[in-house]
């Protein structure tokens, strides 16, 4: 297919339609509204439906209804709207319903502002609802990935029977880049467990309730086993010049693009910097980080927040190597110059790595 210049938010919708998604429920919010607008335009022309819900609470519960009926369904929002959806996400996870939720993050807390931030990390990746559940989270850093990871999100949702988030900052949502889309529409079949109003599947029940303690425990352990499988099988990342790096920058979304530029410049100066970009924020590339810890002397986490993903970097490292942080927030973006300065300082402070026998846990 011919590449087309397209906004991230619009690319999500076209990719979703090609992935066989036929139900969209949403509520306007900057900087995610273009997704609802594009969905309103395209879904109704392609055999699907679009409802502008009365709230994000309604949107996520509509998502629950459509997913229960066995169709590929999605919604999109931003920070405050995602907060409102969290109860519903817990129900979706508990009832094991596949669906896709796109979060185009903005500044918080409260009304914050509409500028990009990466401060939804905790509420999305570490989950914002009640109960022992997880959601898979994909973090695109280009418009092409907005399309590709949306497609992947639907497949992962079906495979793991769980809500999957595509989490991008406002920049990735708003920017335009060339995208090559899939040439064919995915054929979607009704899953066996769906409640679709047919004789064949009349006995089906979709529920998150398990009234007996033993039943609920069994269900939770089943969910947990699923997440463990995702941790083994679904991890994705991009490692850029990281294998021999003294300093490994860790960043996702738009920040990873800035960091990549910084790494190129530092390498040009003969400084050994690299980048690890998690593409799945959950499951987090823990093993890769531990592997890089054998050769790197220090990690540098760069985020558009006061440090949220850094917690996962630290947990992955389990104290093996120091982690330094540089962040901007409130809608400010760390500039290349700032990150360069940060990286140089970190490199200067850190002693070069001495490869020694190290105990590796797990």
């Amino acid at each position, binding site marked *: *297919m*011919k*590449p*087309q*210049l397209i906004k991230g938010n619009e690319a999500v919708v*076209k990719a979703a*339609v090609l992935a066989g998604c036929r*139900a969209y429920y949403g509520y306007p919010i900057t*900087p995610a509204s273009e997704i609802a607008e594009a969905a309103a335009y*395209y879904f*109704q022309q*392609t*055999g*699907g*439906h679009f*409802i502008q*819900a*009365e709230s994000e*609470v*309604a949107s996520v*519960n*509509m*998502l*629950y*209804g*459509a997913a229960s*009926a066995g169709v590929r*369904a999605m919604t999109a929002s931003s920070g405050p709207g995602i907060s409102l959806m969290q109860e*519903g996400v817990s129900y979706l996870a508990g009832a094991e319903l596949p669906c896709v939720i796109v979060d185009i993050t903005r500044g918080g807390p409260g009304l914050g502002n509409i*500028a*990009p931030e990466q401060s939804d990390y905790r509420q999305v990746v570490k989950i914002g609802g009640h109960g022992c559940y997880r959601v898979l989270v994909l973090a695109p850093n280009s418009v092409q990935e907005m399309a590709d990871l949306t497609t992947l999100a639907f497949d992962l949702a079906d495979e793991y029977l769980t809500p999957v988030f595509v989490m991008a900052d*406002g*920049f990735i949502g708003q*920017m*335009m*880049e*060339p995208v090559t*889309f899939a*040439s*064919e*529409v995915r*054929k979607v079949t009704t899953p066996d467990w769906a*409640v*679709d*109003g*047919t004789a064949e*599947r*009349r006995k*089906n*029940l*979709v*529920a*998150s309730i398990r*009234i007996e303690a033993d039943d609920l425990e069994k269900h939770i352990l089943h969910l947990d086993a699923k997440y463990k499988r995702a941790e083994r099988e679904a991890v994705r990342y991009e490692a850029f010049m990281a294998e021999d790096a003294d300093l490994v920058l860790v960043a996702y979304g738009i920040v990873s*693009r*800035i960091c*990549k530029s910084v790494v*190129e410049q530092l390498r040009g100066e003969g400084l050994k910097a690299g980048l690890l970009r998690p593409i799945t924020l959950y499951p987090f590339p823990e093993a890769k980080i531990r592997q890089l810890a054998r050769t790197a002397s220090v990690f540098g986490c760069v985020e558009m927040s006061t440090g949220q993903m850094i917690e996962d970097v630290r947990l992955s490292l389990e104290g093996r190597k120091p982690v330094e942080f540089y962040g901007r927030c409130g809608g400010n973006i760390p500039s*290349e*110059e700032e990150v360069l300065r940060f990286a140089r300082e970190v490199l200067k402070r850190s002693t070069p790595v001495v490869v020694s026998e190290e105990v590796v846990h797990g």
Partner: protein
Amino acid sequence: MAEYKILHDKSNCFYETYERKGELRNQTHYCPGCGHGNAHKLIAQAIEQLGIQDRTITVSPVGCGVFAYYYLDTGNIQAAHGRAAAVATAAKRSRPDSIVISYQGDGDLAAIGTAEILHAANRGENITVFFVNNGIYGMTGGQLAPTTPVGAKSTTSPFGRDAHNDGYPIKVCELLSALEAPVYLERVALGTTKQIMAASRAVKKALENQVKGLGFSLVEILSPCPTIWKLSPVAAQERVRDEMAAIFPIGVYRDRTREAQPYPAPKPAPPAEQIPAILGIESAEGVIEAAKPDRPVDWRIRVAGFGGQGVLMLGEVLAEAGLEAGLEVSWLPSYGPEMRSGTSNCHVRVGTHPIASPLVTKPNVLLALNEPSLKKFLPTVEPGGWVLYNGESIPEGIQVRGDVNMQAIPFTQLADELGEAKAGNIVSLGALLELTGMLRQEAVDHALAHLVKSTRWLEIDRQALKAGRRAAHAREAERAEVCQ
């Protein structure tokens, strides 16, 4: 020996045994005399009579009715508290041939779920809602409901419902009857056997409306809760008849069943092979690989001005033309705190190397369409870069930088002469192309044809491009003269 035939029996719409706690597999979990059982029976009977069991999806949210799925042998979806109407909406839209029932209590529907029910009704969703109103929170143990009568004690109104503190009982049928869309709203009661029989007709009608595709139907069922009311089942039934029906008058609140037209069927899906075209995705067939420039280029462009000058559009034309020319491109609007305050700018990158960061913090091209933009971004321009300012001359007070190529050309004025001040952005593009040779004219023509849908505007933009080129050419000639 006389011969008897079964007149009334357990409906086939109930499971034979109920998959619930241990031995209690033959009776419901409801308390003795609870109206939920009656309501279930009426629904099951209507489903059976209408022959829609296989098509039916029952949505049961939180409340005593949450376990309706133990009993009703239909498709079942258990929903979050208050959200049944939203869940039912989507199930129905996703499966238009199904018959979707939303079975809700009064805490669920009239307190936490008021938004969802109101909007489902207002959209005229073709679903059937059974609203069981017993004026109390049963499942959680007797707290105040939105429908609790004034003066009635509950665990959270220990001195009786005080209208000044708790408001008045919400009358759902009356409330919904203010909306245009609902086709059928009726309040029935389980206060006497006669009322129960009347309720059975309403329940059936509400389902039949959905079968006919007529739209939103709701039946409110005044129902006893002997346990929480601390009354015998018989006395509780009498309270429904005498007290509840006095607060919530039974009757038909809306009935447009006769005149209502069935909803048009959803638009059929187009053949799958047509969908890429609907999405505006073009086949790559016949696309000729554009000749890439023979030397590496890396244009980092910042376009800035005030809202309405076509700043974002200009950036888009540059990126689109870059794409046409086979280059790597990105376009990023400034979007954020300044977005709503009248100024506008965007970052465009056009180059031969894959683009790492789409942010342009050190531009080598600045198109400043107004003075504040020039002031703001001039210091960021890389030495050797280009600065094009929209004006006769660089304004006083702004230091002309000797290390960059600065040009002041009155783009807006030139566009004005073409009859469209708004085309100033394209005039500046023409000047940029003339001065830098950034992109071939052909690529820009393609980009404009792709982005500008109106033929009138396309012609204006073509003239604007030419005007920009002419003006820039003249400036260069002047400068060359001065230099000599």
